[in-house]
Structures are given as C-alpha cells and as structure tokens.
C-alpha cells in the first residue's frame, strides 16, 4: 500500500496544513509517495517542510518515501536552484527529470541548507551577510545597520533547532514579491525541523502551569508570547523575544507551526489569524519570518 501525499499547487505556509493532512496519523503505516507534479510554486517554507517530512519519515524508521518532481520546467529549475534536490535525493526516491542547478545571481539569499550543529549557523550567517545587505537596503528600504539584526534573527531562529529539536533541520532564505497579501517585496526566512516540537520541549517545566489547557497551542504561546524556555538559566528565552523586537521595527511577521497548532505575531498588513489549533499533525517545528519592503513597489 502507498499513501499519496499531494504537494499543493501553491505550496506555502498557508497550504502547508493541506499537505500535512495527507499524512494522516503520524507516522503513516504505508509507504509515502509525495506527488509534487502539480506544484506551480513553492515558498522556502514549503521546500524546507518537504525535506522535513522526508527526514521525519526516515527517523520514524519508515521506508524511503517516493517524490515525483514538479512537471513544470521552471518550477523544477527553481527547486534545483535552491539546492533542494541535492538534499531531497538523500531522503526520497526521486522520480522525474532533475535539472542541473543553475548558478549566477538570483533572489535566493540562502540555498536550502541543513542545520546540524552550531558551526552550521556560523557558516549560514557568514554566507548571508553580503546578499542580505544588498536586498534589505537596496530593495526593502531598510537601513544598513539593520542587516545585522537580520543575521541575528536568522541565527536565533536556527538555534531553536540546535538547542531544542533533538534532531537536525533545514533553513532557506529568499526574497520575492508577496503579491497576494502585500504587493511588496519581502525577505522570507524559513526554518524547519522534524524534532520534538514545542510542546514536548517545554512539557517538563510548563505543563503543570497550564493544567488541562496544555497542548501545542499553549506551548507556542509560552514560547513566543511569554518568552519561556525549558532551561532554568534566566538568560534563556531571549531568542524569540529578540526576533519579535527586530520584526516590530520593520513591520515583520513571525509564525510558528508545531504539532497541531500555529501561532503568529501578525503585522497590520496581514490578515492571518494569530492562533490556529487542531491542525493536522506535523512533526517538529516550522518557523517563518517575513520582513517586508518599507515602501510599496513603484
């Protein structure tokens, strides 16, 4: 038996729930076939989420899943350009034509990159600096000194994996135009892991405090709103607080999906719901940070 998991045509943080729903009870009993043939566009969030699915299935001891690549040439080329297929080949049995990755300038600020240890974050911050400065100041109208805040936000988002996930994960950063919701250029950081998730990470220190309310949603609330950490060190819990502070200056957005809930700090330009619970389960945590251009495109 094979369970078919469809990749939505427009694969982003919104349609991710639909993608997660195809897996059913986690981990699925059957071998999984991820069908991306109909995918027309995928955000960095979609791509790192897809790799997380493959990794989580492997870590659950499941048979290597199949992945049919997008039918559209330009979509395949973009996925190749982000480095997605290099990592996907290690996690999935790939079916379909895989183009050679193009080189040269693009809106991909950081290829799909694994995060396994602290050293990976040093490399990521080093790689992103020049491109981030060009995009943030040149295209988004954010002052030059804010570039370091961006690198800080990226570093702190990635550290959640190293510090809390109990496994490795993925990050990707890209600039693109957010036509549907904003009509402006944005830079998007997407970080995903298939680890223990916020609820299990915080359970030993926070569950009692929330009593019957304890779950994925309250765990996200504790971490993102109350800056709570599982560590007793009073210096902990500042990472997400620092990201929020940075984003509040630039009308940015952060959303975190973990288990069956998603919590977002929603800026005025977005109509997202701050908290959604009872979503289809997906392992680990998926973080998206969006920083918009300060002025509309001419």
């Amino acid at each position: 038996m094979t369970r078919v998991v469809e990749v939505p045509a427009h694969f982003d943080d919104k349609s991710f729930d639909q993608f997660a729903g195809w897996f059913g009870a986690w981990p699925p009993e059957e071998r999984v076939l991820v069908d991306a043939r109909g995918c027309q566009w995928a955000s960095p969030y979609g791509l790192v989420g897809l790799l997380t699915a493959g990794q989580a299935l492997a870590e659950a001891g499941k048979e290597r899943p199949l992945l049919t690549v997008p039918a559209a040439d330009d979509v395949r080329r973009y996925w190749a350009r982000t480095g997605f297929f290099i990592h996907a080949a290690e996690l999935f049995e790939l079916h379909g034509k895989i183009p050679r990755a193009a080189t040269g300038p693009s809106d991909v600020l950081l290829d799909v990159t694994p995060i396994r240890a602290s050293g990976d974050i040093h490399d990521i911050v080093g790689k992103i600096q020049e491109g981030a400065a060009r995009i943030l100041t040149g295209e988004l109208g954010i002052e030059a000194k804010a570039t370091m805040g961006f690198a800080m936000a990226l570093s702190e988002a990635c550290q959640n994996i190293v510090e809390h996930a109990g496994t490795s994960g993925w990050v990707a950063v890209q600039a693109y135009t957010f036509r549907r919701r904003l009509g402006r250029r944005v830079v998007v950081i997407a970080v995903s892991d298939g680890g223990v998730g916020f609820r299990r990470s915080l359970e030993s220190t926070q569950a009692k405090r929330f009593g019957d309310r304890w779950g994925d949603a309250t765990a996200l609330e504790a971490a993102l709103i109350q800056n709570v950490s599982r560590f007793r060190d009073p210096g902990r819990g500042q990472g997400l607080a620092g990201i929020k502070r940075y984003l509040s200056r630039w009308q940015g957005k952060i959303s975190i999906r973990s288990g069956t809930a998603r919590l977002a700090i929603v800026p005025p330009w977005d109509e997202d719901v701050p908290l959604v619970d009872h979503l289809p389960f997906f392992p680990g945590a998926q973080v998206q940070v969006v920083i918009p251009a300060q002025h509309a495109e001419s």
Partner: protein
Amino acid sequence: MVQISLRRVLQEAVAAPYRHLVTRATGAAVRGRIEAVLADADWTITLLDFSGVDCLDLSCADEIVAKLLLAAATRDRVVILAGVREDQRDALEHVLVHHRLAVAASFAGTDAADVIGWTSSDAREAFASLRADGPADAARIAARLDWPHERAEAALEDLGRHRIARATGGVFHPVTLL
C-alpha cells in the same frame, strides 16, 4: 586592566576563522576561555574588545557579556566594552536590560562612549559629564547639568551600583575606557 580581544578568543575557541559571535555554544566556549584567563590574572577591570567581530547575536551577548558582568558583580570587579559597533549595540542592550545590568562602552571608529543596558537617561548624562568635565560629586553634577541635587545623587548612585563610576570621598570617577 586585562584587555581581551573577542575576535582572537573566538577564533581560538572554535578553531576556525569565524568573525561572528553567534550561537550559545560559541558564547559559552568564548566565555570559558575568558574565565580561564581571568582566573590566572590579578585584575580589577576587564576590557572586552569587540574590534574585528562582525555579527553579534543575543545568545552570544548573553553568554559572554551578561554572564561575565553577573560574575564580576559578585566580586566587585568591573567589565567594560570597547570597539562596539552601533549595530551590535541592539543585542547588547536587549540582553543587559533583560538581566537589569549595565556596562560602559566605547564605540568603533569614534571617541564616543556611553552606558549600555538597564540604566536611566540621567545616569547616561551624568556619565557623559564625568567623562567630559572630570570627576565630580553630586553637587557639582547638579550644577553642571542644572539639576536638583537629589536627581544628580540618584544618577551617580545608579552609575556606582553598576560599577560604571567609583566614588572616592563622595567624588565619582568614571571607569576609564579606551
């Protein structure tokens, strides 16, 4: 005074030519090396030099600066910062305010110095006055800044509490920065 180049300690701690102070693990490794140096030194003031450091994230700022300041407070010792870039100041402000700590710092490429962290704007002004016009008691600060005496006294007490200025016979001397 013990002067410590964070760039050099970073590269020794991670055995790689990194120039970013990022991640909690890196911060803990850097702090460990600094503590080892300080354990062998007869010191009152430690200067942490940020020259050559590029990105500074909150985790590293917390592991290095906040934790060294917390340790220094228990032994009545002083930590000061030098070569701080404006874009690193945000991370430092964030973690120091979180711990209700403050530190005197000089900034890269300028002669400017300021107090970073959990302190009042009055204390910052008083610190600037002590640096610009020399050591002073509360009466003299009140006269210089046209403040009521109590306001000057509170500002100087704030600086003293954070070991940013040291009182000798009622006269406050600012810490010496590079």
